């Protein structure tokens, strides 16, 4: 789950990292009122995506009037498909130097990884490409945490930056990462002022979706993924449904198999209408899955591809067939079934619809694609 800047920065403040004075505004009037209180400011679009500056979603404002005009403009914008519903009005901070700092879950080292660069103000990809030697990569053992001595060894002296303050910020950043089950906790830019003091000008925080349950209060200030109506319906029921642009509906089990089903549709010249998987613990949801996949009016043929490991094909097939008469599919449906429970599943299909599944997934996919040509 992603967090907008205004929702992420309090996590930094709570570990002692300085952030500029600010207020959240949902209208031009509110923005002007905040600007009046804090003086010359920056008006920043609040959307959980990067590239806000390049999109024109960040503007300087010298006066409350400027802030009002900029807020009015930015509040009407869409950035990366996301409508801007609020702006952060933040005090301007003099910048002597821009740095980069982040802690993230690293699959290579299987632990937290601290990244630090004295060259900041650009995306981490650009820092890694343009200043590879300046990028410090410090793997951390999550059982031991991050000691001051380790930090002191790993982080070089930075001209014009107070060293104790820098180590404090990095230690605090790790603390905020660890306390909040972060996938990513990033400060970019971390700026140094003329006195060598440090201020976090931005903060990007992603909460691990699997850890939301132990951060219920925090999660309320996160930004849920933007879902279509059908995607929301799938999420409420308890399976993963992603709406796509094609017209061949997909009902499958397991993430890997479902992606593969989409790949095969694409390979044989069709276009998948959705990702929908009822694997894992969702395999009892065959009935609801049939309803959701056929609720998309673009679907002109439906591919049901079950290959059972934990997900029993007899239970999934039973669920789909239970909903069959109610849903009354008006598009041709193509079946492939193998794995756990397949003998029972085949029999159910024969008894209910008088048909056999296709011998292989590829045969079923070809037929489903052919049907919409």
């Amino acid at each position: 789950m992603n967090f907008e800047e205004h929702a992420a920065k309090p996590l930094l403040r709570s570990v002692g990292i300085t952030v500029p004075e600010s207020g959240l505004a949902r209208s031009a009037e509110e923005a002007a009122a905040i600007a009046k209180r804090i003086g010359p400011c920056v008006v920043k679009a609040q959307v959980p995506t990067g590239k806000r500056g390049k999109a024109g979603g960040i503007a300087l404002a010298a006066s409350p009037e400027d802030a009002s005009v900029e807020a009015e403009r930015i509040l009407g914008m869409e950035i990366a498909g996301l409508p801007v519903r609020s702006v952060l009005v933040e005090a301007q901070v003099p910048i002597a130097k821009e740095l980069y700092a982040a802690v993230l879950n690293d699959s290579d080292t299987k632990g937290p990884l601290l990244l630090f660069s004295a060259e900041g103000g650009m995306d981490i990809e650009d820092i890694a490409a343009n200043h590879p030697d300046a990028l410090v990569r410090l793997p951390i053992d999550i059982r031991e945490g991050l000691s001051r001595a380790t930090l002191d060894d790993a982080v070089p002296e930075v001209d014009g930056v107070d060293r104790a303050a820098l180590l404090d910020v990095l230690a605090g950043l790790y603390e905020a990462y660890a306390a909040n089950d972060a996938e990513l906790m990033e400060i970019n830019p971390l700026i140094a002022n003329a006195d060598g003091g440090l201020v976090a000008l931005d903060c990007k925080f992603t909460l691990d979706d699997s850890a939301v349950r132990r951060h219920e209060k925090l999660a309320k200030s996160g930004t849920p993924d933007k879902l279509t109506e059908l995607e929301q319906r799938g999420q409420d029921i308890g399976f993963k449904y992603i709406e796509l642009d094609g017209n061949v509906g997909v009902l499958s089990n397991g993430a890997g198999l479902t992606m593969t089903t989409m790949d095969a549709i694409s390979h044989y010249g069709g276009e998948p209408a959705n990702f929908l998987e009822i694997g894992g613990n969702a395999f009892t949801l065959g009935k609801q899955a049939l309803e959701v996949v056929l609720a998309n009016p673009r679907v002109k043929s439906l591919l049901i591809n079950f290959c059972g490991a934990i997900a029993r094909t007899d239970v999934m097939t039973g669920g789909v067939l239970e909903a069959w008469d109610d849903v009354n599919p008006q598009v041709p449906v193509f079946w492939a079934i193998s794995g756990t429970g397949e003998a029972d599943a085949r029999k159910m299909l024969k008894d209910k619809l008088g048909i056999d599944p296709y011998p292989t997934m590829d045969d079923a996919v070809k037929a489903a694609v052919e049907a919409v040509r």
Partner: protein
Amino acid sequence: MIVRGSETVLVHGITGTQATFWSDKMKEYGTKVVGGLNPKKAGTEHLGLPVWASARDAVSDHGAAIDCSCVIVPPAAVKQSVMDALDAGIKKVVILTEHIPVHDTMYFLSAAHEAGASVIGPNTAGIVTPGECFVGFMPAFNDRVFKPGSVGIISRSGSLGTLVCLNMVQAGYGISAFIGIGGDPVIGTTTKDALGCLDEDPKTQAIALVGEIGGGMEEEAAEYAKGMNKPIVSFIAGAASPSGKKMGHAGAIVMGDKGSYAGKKAALEAAGVTVLATPSGLPDVLKEHLTA
């Protein structure tokens, strides 16, 4: 990472609905399940097997070291459960649970590393040695899907792994070992680890590597594959998936260029691995390699 029929297995959370179904299947297939854990039901029997409160109790009551833990407990309980297994000296831990907080996973992987134990998963469908035993949620007992033989299979996904095994067996090949490594972003046994294990396994003559978009494990495995003599064929799922969305598996997400289908395919092909557009053709390519 290959499980042998002689290895003893302890099921953490054995009394749950899924665990009951699959423990019974494991036993029936020949896996040496010695019992299970559930602190609330310690001292009782389940499926005719003893139920203990902790792995340490299990080892002491069983009277010998236990080789393998199979963890099927709710996500919030997994960290404690794995630490319990490590504490009892168990050196192979297969974690089937999905949706474990990644910070918990990093914690017990660090502890396992220190203890010299290998972790398979989390979020794996398990491991199968056809004709001997299996640990996990795999239809090892279905002889259309699994038969003993010489092809080793690596897969992040249980459902797709099952399909690939089925394709192999229907084409007349047998399976030496199936290693499900799991769909989470941070896992104990990587694609490269599993590849190394099959490389050293004398029964394995060829390998089917089934990958997924997201992360960098296939690229890392490709580097290792350059030094191998056994033929490898591969399918990577997710070519048709949109960028920036998690495709069911928490690890299956493309961010920018990182984790993309094109990058993985190119890396594997540079290592001499044939990468196919659908998994059904894998046995045919294998045939060419094995007769060449």
